[in-house]
């Protein structure tokens, strides 16, 4: 084994020994994507000591595409699973015991993107294009929703989106799926300006980066949610420290990209109802949408899928930073 690996092991071993404080509750937090600013508040929670102050030893486990966070939660391999509201509802139907207690993204970060110079200004403009074609994750809820909502069946062609923006960058008429925390900034880093069309405008707006736990009444849950809210506020004020850590873990993100993403995601994080909060109206809207798409039996409600942990009223996020 190379020397550098032995050294790394030694350092990790020491770190593990020194960090293992028996008085802190161990919490493994499973992310549902690569480390990115969309999880900035959680990293700030660890780096800024918010979780430690709340008596929690939080370990963040990055994920990737098809990260099985709820399955990890169910198997006890993680104590907190990051998921999306629609995913949670569907998985609960399959028997997973998980409850949402907080939502980092008030508005869904999903949508479509077009080149800046494109005549498409909103989602409904798409059918007006000549031979419209959208690159999207075929079969996922957003795909089904958009086609149903705008009646695109037979009018707009859906092509599979493989995760790379290469094709989009070369074609000024291209339209593709995008997460506000990802593709627009990638395109910008390659010199292409884009316009982002959020899917919430069409009425599909499940909460994003939802914090789910197995038992919302567990002692540590309240402390965790409070610390998380605090940490996210701190992150939005000063994202530098957490973003630096994210940049280390995800070396594909340089300082420019990190800055781009942090700014773009801000309005989706804070939303209209105040950070972290969740409303019955929105949850039921998501459940109803899933019912219309046939992913949930019609009429199934979102009761029990979520609960609001009692927090002191958070001040509205400051505009200066």
């Amino acid at each position, binding site marked *: 084994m*190379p020397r550098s690996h032995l050294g790394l092991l030694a350092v990790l071993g020491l770190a593990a020994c020194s960090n293992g404080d028996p008085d802190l509750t161990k919490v493994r937090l499973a*992310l549902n994507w*690569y*480390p990115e600013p969309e999880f900035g508040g959680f990293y700030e929670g660890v780096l800024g000591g918010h979780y430690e102050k709340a008596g929690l030893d939080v370990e963040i*486990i*990055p*994920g*990737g*595409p*098809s*990260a*099985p966070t709820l*399955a*990890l939660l169910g*198997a006890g*391999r993680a104590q907190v699973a990051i998921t999306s509201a629609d995913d949670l509802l569907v998985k609960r139907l399959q028997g997973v015991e998980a409850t949402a207690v907080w939502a980092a993204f008030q508005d869904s970060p999903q949508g479509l993107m077009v080149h800046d110079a494109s005549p498409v200004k909103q989602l409904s403009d798409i059918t007006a294009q000549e031979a419209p074609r959208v690159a999207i994750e075929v079969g996922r809820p957003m795909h089904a929703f958009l086609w149903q909502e705008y009646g695109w069946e037979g009018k707009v062609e859906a092509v599979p989106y*493989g*995760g*790379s*923006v*290469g*094709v989009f*960058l*070369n074609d000024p008429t291209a339209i593709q799926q995008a997460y506000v925390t*990802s593709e627009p900034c*990638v*395109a910008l*880093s*390659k010199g292409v300006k884009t316009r982002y069309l959020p899917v919430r405008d069409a009425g599909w707006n499940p909460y994003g980066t939802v914090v789910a736990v197995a038992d919302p009444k567990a002692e540590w849950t309240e402390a965790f949610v409070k610390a998380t809210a605090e940490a996210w506020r701190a992150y939005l004020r000063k994202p530098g420290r957490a973003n630096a850590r994210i940049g280390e*873990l*995800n*070396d*594909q*993100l340089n300082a420019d990209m990190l800055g781009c993403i942090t700014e773009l995601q801000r309005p989706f994080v804070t939303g209209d109802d105040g950070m972290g909060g969740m409303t019955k109206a929105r949850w039921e809207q998501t459940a109803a949408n899933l019912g219309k798409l046939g992913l949930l039996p019609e009429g199934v409600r979102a009761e029990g899928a979520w609960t609001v942990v009692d927090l002191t009223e958070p001040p509205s996020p400051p505009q200066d930073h």
Partner: protein
Amino acid sequence: MSRTVLLPALVGLVVLVGWQLLSATLPPFLMAGPLEVLSALSAHAGKLAHSAWITGSAAVAGLCIATLSGLLLGGLFATSRTAERALYPYALLVQTVPVIAIAPLLVVWLDYGWWVSCVSAAIVSFFPMLTGAHVGLRATDPDQLALLRLYGAGHRQQLLLLRLPAAAPHIFAGLRTAGGLAVIGAVVGDFVGSNGQPPSLGYVVLKAAAAADVARSFAAVVVSALLALALFGLTRVAEHATIGAWHGDRATA
């Protein structure tokens, strides 16, 4: 320069030139030419080497698991017709398992990373090893077997002195196929089961592509290809060292 080096080198040169020309004509962000890839290789050399170590070790470990289980099951099939008939369809099923489908299960059981890639490599390289062992252990010369029985050799002696050595060429033939497959399997395992901590080759391929860093993505692909070649070469070396003296270019019965 000897023929064996000159000819492939010439073909390689033609391929590289063709590749460079092709990537120059294509629109950007879709493909990286050899020069770009080379520069990405040197820029990320340390990290790519680390990734290669992770994925490569998973491939080798997976191959070892596949070899062991292939030998055991192949041996069972060769000795018991009943076992063969009962279990063969399931052995066949193993190779049709799409790793992508079972990946979430693997991640929950084994945690992100190395073990998922190892299991994936094992699954993919299992069948050639099973076939090699099965066919090899059944290919025993009946006269040679009669010879051993004449001198009172028991089953264990028959296995060690005759069946296994006679099966070796078939097993190594299976190993040749399985080696390259193991690397593919490990990389696919990386795709679905790696969260980048630490970054495996498949993880880098996917991540870099998603960030439109095509050169880096291709560089990781090149490294995987080299890994597959290396493993293949290793199996050939092992084959030569073990049975090269009596099995090789000369025609066998």
